[in-house]
């Protein structure tokens, strides 16, 4: 007696929530970003969303959150899966409270992990992707120092993967002191290419098996 149905027609799959790949975009919206920079960045956000959507698994697994920092810290977007992500239109004004921004991003990551654990959802190591055209300004030194120490501790304990991108006149030296990973300098205002790289990286992470490091695509949009 032969079964005429194919295996893929009769085998049923378990329903498990997709593992999540959280990514916080931590964006400098200080006064100097006004004009060309913030416009190019806004366009880049659309490239990011559209590229992620092309891969159906990544679209369901990658979660995007957005925090901006200028004279204030604003949670622009709480975590949402890439397929539901609608890019905001960011504007720029004010100083650069980077230390507070870093704290907020790390808080956001921590809270999300806790939610995942409570709900039995598996997850990948979260990313924070900080984009700035300057350095901390308008904050107490100790806020920045504390944020730096916290970030270094989180990286050492593999709680997060924190990447820094400097734009235009960013103080790369200062940024190298704050970030563990070497900051990258964006070529011109090539945000679109940068966001496409980020989307490819998040996609690679979202179905990777790693011991130490995921092999990221080569960086063509910036330099060390």
């Amino acid at each position: 007696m032969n079964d005429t149905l194919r295996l893929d027609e009769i085998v049923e799959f378990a329903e498990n929530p997709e593992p999540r790949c959280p990514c916080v975009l931590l964006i400098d919206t200080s006064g100097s970003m006004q004009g060309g920079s913030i416009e190019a960045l806004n366009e880049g956000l659309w490239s990011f969303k559209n590229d992620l959507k092309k891969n159906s698994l990544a679209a369901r697994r990658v979660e995007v959150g957005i925090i901006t920092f200028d004279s204030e810290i604003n949670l622009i977007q709480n975590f949402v899966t890439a397929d539901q992500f609608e890019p905001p239109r960011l504007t720029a004004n004010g100083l650069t409270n980077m230390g507070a921004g870093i704290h907020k991003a790390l808080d956001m990551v921590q809270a999300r992990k806790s939610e995942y654990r409570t709900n039995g959802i598996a997850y990948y190591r979260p990313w924070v992707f900080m984009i700035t055209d300057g350095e901390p300004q308008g904050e107490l030194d100790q806020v920045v120092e504390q944020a730096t120490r916290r970030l270094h501790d989180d990286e050492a304990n593999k709680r997060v993967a924190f990447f820094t991108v400097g734009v235009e006149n960013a103080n790369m030296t200062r940024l190298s002191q704050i970030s563990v990973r070497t900051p990258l300098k964006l070529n011109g205002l090539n945000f679109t290419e940068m966001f496409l790289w980020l989307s490819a990286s998040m996609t690679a992470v979202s179905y990777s098996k790693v011991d130490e490091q995921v092999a990221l695509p080569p960086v063509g949009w910036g330099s060390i």
Partner: protein
Amino acid sequence: MNSLKQTSQWRVVAASVCGKSHQQKQQLCQDAHAWQILPDNILIAAIADGAGSASMGKIGAIVAAQTAVANICAGTVTRRILDDDTSVRLLLIEALVAAKQAVMEEAIACEKQIHDLATTLIVLIATPEMVAAAQIGDGVAVVKDFAGNVFALTQPQNGEYINETTFLVSPDAINTAQLRLLRQVIVNVALLTDGLQMLALNMDSGTPHQPFFTPLFKFISDVNDKSDGVNQLVSFLRSERICDRADDDLTLLLADISN
């Protein structure tokens, strides 16, 4: 229906296919499997999954799976010996050690670092009356007993992050390997690498999803032509329904001793 009474024999169908993501990046499929049936209905099997970040994960997986099986088969393995728990444990551990050694030697021969050949490994010994497994890393061994109960013999091993696991080449891998032994009349065994985990297991409880395994175990018990069986399994693993939910390399080894 068989009109002749036959001694039941193990029948095995296994396949490893390349994941979409690896195809897109033009990487080799990094999964491997190996198996052998010894006299007196003893099944020896192994599956392995090379680390995505390991440049020679594929080689590591092949070497590990083949060495583990060859190592056990080279010794004296009888039903009598398998009656003793300590002997079973020893056979499995020695297989892991031999596999790790072989991977290390391969790394040296290829002038690579050992972590370039990082791979997971599951090794299985089964007779109609017992089943034992040693596991390093993720993936799972599932068993169906005579009463029709389907349960997981091992559990996928993950760190905090879903893509973190232990590899054969990791420093403490053998000491921390899962070792499981079950003395019960069994009819089916399945080994899967982690690409199929999300589809085959209820991840929060680690229990097998029955409607995944039941048709597969029926399939293997009905298979008469081995190469046709492998083709059907490969088609299944390459089907759209699977590819939509799994990007990874996939290995599925099915074994039956029910008739």
